[in-house]
């Protein structure tokens, strides 16, 4: 059934757009060119800054979107920062994270934190992820799925803490997309790419904005190292 529907729909589309044997090669070439060149379009000037200013813009925009941001000198500072963040908010000293090698080496024994590994089961209050990058233009984090950083850690816990390497902050979304292509190959994507701009929210009741809808109530970003 679906096969014949597909043929019927495609036939109607071809007639509607005026496809015929005479223009077929030309049309196919235009589509192939766009898919392979992926032209960039209009890139706003806002994010096109030298590294240090770019990082400042990211922090400013993320803060405007109600995320909180802390800068750390080195990855080894992460355990104590996470412990302090949870303590200040009177949250249970427990954190759930994936198998990201950049987080696996952290020494949590200096803290009282209970660290568990794997995707969220739904009852974790706080989670720790590592972003693959961030966009200065809008204050957006970029996370990808996989055992390193299971997607459920981005959405189920109430407090989401995200580690971001300062050198991974780029100006615009197009720069992130170029990096994804480099990592995963042209035309191939991780199962899920999450662009996250601030904690979850809803304005469905009388257009009043409330933080903490179905995803995290708080998003805390740890920017590690120097921009490069």
């Amino acid at each position, binding site marked *: 059934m679906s096969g014949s529907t597909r043929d019927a729909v495609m036939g109607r589309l071809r007639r*509607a757009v005026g496809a015929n044997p005479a223009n077929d090669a030309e049309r196919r070439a235009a589509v192939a060119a*766009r898919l392979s060149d992926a032209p960039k379009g209009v890139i*706003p000037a806002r994010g096109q800054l030298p590294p240090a200013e770019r990082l400042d813009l990211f922090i400013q925009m993320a803060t405007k979107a109600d995320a909180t941001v802390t800068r750390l000198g080195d990855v080894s500072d992460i355990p104590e920062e996470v412990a302090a963040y949870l303590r200040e908010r009177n949250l249970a000293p427990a954190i759930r994270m994936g198998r990201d090698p950049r987080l696996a080496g952290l020494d949590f024994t200096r803290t009282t934190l209970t660290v568990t590994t794997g995707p969220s089961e739904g009852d974790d209050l706080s989670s720790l992820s590592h972003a693959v990058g961030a966009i200065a233009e809008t204050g957006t984090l970029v996370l990808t799925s996989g055992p390193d950083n*299971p997607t459920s850690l981005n959405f189920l816990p109430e407090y989401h803490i995200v580690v971001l390497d300062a050198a991974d902050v780029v100006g615009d979304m197009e720069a992130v997309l170029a990096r994804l292509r480099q990592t995963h190959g042209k035309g191939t994507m991780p*199962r899920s790419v999450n*662009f996250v701009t601030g904690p979850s929210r*809803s304005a469905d009741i009388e257009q009043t904005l409330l933080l903490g809808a179905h995803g995290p109530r708080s998003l805390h970003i740890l920017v590690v190292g120097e921009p490069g």
Partner: protein
Amino acid sequence: MQITSQTFKANTVKALADVDLQRALRHVEKGFIGKRQKAADALPEFDALRDNAVEIKNHTLKHLDLYIEAYVAKVEASGGKVHFAEDADHARRIFLDIAKRRKAKTVTKGKTMISEEIGLNAFLEENGIVPVETDLGEYIIQLRGEHPSHIIAPAVHINRDQVEADFRKFHVHLDPERDLVRPETLLSEARQILRQKYGEADIGVTGANFLIAETGTSVIVTNEGNGDLTQLLGKCHVVLASLEKIVPTLEDTAQILRVLARSATGQEMSVYTTLSTGPKRTEDEDGPEEYHVILLDNGRSGMLGTEFEDMLRCIRCGACMNHCPVYHAVGGHSYGWVYPGPMGAVLTPSLIGVDKAGHLPNASTFCGRCEAVCPMRIPLPKMMRHWREKEFESHLQPKAARAGLGVWAYLARRPKLYRAAVSYAMPALKLLAGRKGRFRSLPLAGGWTKWRDLPAPEGRTFMQAYAQSGHGDPK
């Protein structure tokens, strides 16, 4: 869902008298317009991005057959499946086949207007499957047995105290003495209840803001995170999307995203923009086991290559209804189907027929605000005029209206006769109106004079006044 677009006029009379609705509708005008303006002003490239977004969509529509071919190949390469659906009934049957094969009992749902278009919820219930809406607004209206009244703010017609009353009525397992005055508490309660549902669901249904041909990816843009939990935790993810959601590349998506959130909610970027490609991978520890896309035509291929093609650029941001004085006055339900406001006035006749939805393109003051704010620069007023013409051509208007238009058209095509007629009519009307210069009632103009007086002409025609002003004869 039952279509009530035929009774648009009666719907609006009811809406105008509905005190709760009128109270709720004030939030539309107050909330959306200023936020969009601020966001547009904050990005100097906003209009250039709009132009490019229009070009991207136009290019895509001209090559839609080929981009769909490329998209389907990529979805299949990533382990997903695309099902073509001719119409609403066909889409529902495809969904039921998937549900039966998976022995589904519960289906969680992110906000999808295509689901409304195909009437999925009622159909699932008929087949013993429980649909659970997870978007806060959708959840509220599902409790109330209603339909969305706005494409991005489905419960915009409801006030906080009404939500409180509904939660008390339906969440009977909770303490009846609990304090629900603050909207935050209402949100927490919905969050807690829906938390249980995501993991229990056999299928998670979402819509799609974009389908990317380059990668076979579906994109959802949300603020709450419910759509993400729905597509991530349901054992099988089904995407409901219509043909025109296709965009060529990731970069094209990034361009249109910049105008989408700003036009919709005035955000620089919505909280969650999620790109999903295929089912769970071998190494994944979470994610759906199956990934399906039901690609719906339902009349869209018939719009391509016609005067209504521009409407297929629509990205469903809701800006046109947020800025529409008619929508502000009568709300979304008056339009009688899924899509309200100016975009609904153009799209609804295309999808369900001008015989059923002919009133909608007439419900416009032609003020042009919708076109001015449309990020995709869709000429909405022009297309409403096309529908009015079609309605006239198909003899769908009442006899009196047709006769009136006939007389007017006869005169308008004969300038001399027209001028002669009005040069007698104007002084006559002035005389009839007497000293007050107004009519309290007038034959054939009862629709006007029932609500307010009609000012009488001052005795001269425009042409006469112009000639006497010293500008000479305007011919």
